[in-house]
């Protein structure tokens, strides 16, 4: 039962107040994109044992989408941050590096 800090309203939200939204930082592939790019966008997902980036919505709360970086093994949360970004903030990446040197996830490391 996770607690995630909502970066919008400042509430440490209980997992039962949140709804999960799958993998973070997907890059949309629209009309005209080649099949392999669209396949990646629609179907391919990271399934790491360790560092992971996810989307969550503060559904029973302020209603905002945000991102969370956490460890799927220990449930350690490296940080949460707003959804209006295309990659994790440097500060979060640095924190992960401090705790999980050599980590990589998708295009990020």
């Amino acid at each position, binding site marked *: 039962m996770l607690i995630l800090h909502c970066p*919008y309203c*400042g509430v440490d939200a209980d997992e039962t107040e949140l709804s999960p939204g799958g993998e973070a930082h997907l890059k949309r592939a629209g009309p005209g994109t080649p099949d392999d790019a669209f396949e990646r966008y629609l179907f391919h997902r990271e399934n790491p044992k360790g560092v992971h980036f996810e989307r969550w919505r503060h559904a029973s709360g*302020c*209603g905002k989408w945000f991102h969370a970086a956490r460890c799927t093994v220990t449930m350690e949360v490296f940080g949460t941050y707003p959804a209006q970004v295309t990659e994790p903030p440097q500060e979060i990446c640095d924190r992960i590096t401090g705790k999980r040197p050599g980590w990589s996830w998708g295009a990020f490391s």
Partner: protein
Amino acid sequence: MSEPVSALQGAIFEGLVKVEEAGPCGMITLRGDLASTQVKTAATGVAGVDFPGQGEANCAGDKGLCWMSPDEILVLCPYDQAGAGVAAIDKLLAGTHYLATNVSDARARFVVSGLDAREVLAKLTPADMSPAGFAPGRFRRTRLAQVPAAFWMRDEHMFEVICFRSVAQYVFDILTAAATPGSEVGFF
């Protein structure tokens, strides 16, 4: 013009605490850039109270402002003033990027009062209801059992709870179940 009828027509239950449906109340959803002076002025102009900070509610009498999210404020006013309130906001913010709409009928409002009010709510919400975790002036959107709801405190022993109108009966029923006489927890 027929009189407005709230969802439960003022239902009352007295147990561990008093649970009371509060009757029609004016509510306006205002979405916009809450940092903008214009938006703030529009909101405070209708509510007549100071603009609240993140996670806060400023309420006085039947007027008030509740912080819903970084781009949404809930304006409280008497039921029959909500339409005029929206019009006033529209006038002030015309030409800017905002949304103001009357949601007075979309919600139900309850007053939960009594020494054990904190405990009754703590049976239903995962939010921290201890005095250290929640106090007058704060505003919390969360869930009560299985539905979204929000609340704030008028004073140390009185909560105002709002939920969607369609689940008013459900919220009244779970509040009264939580207020079963003799079921006090004695925790706070």
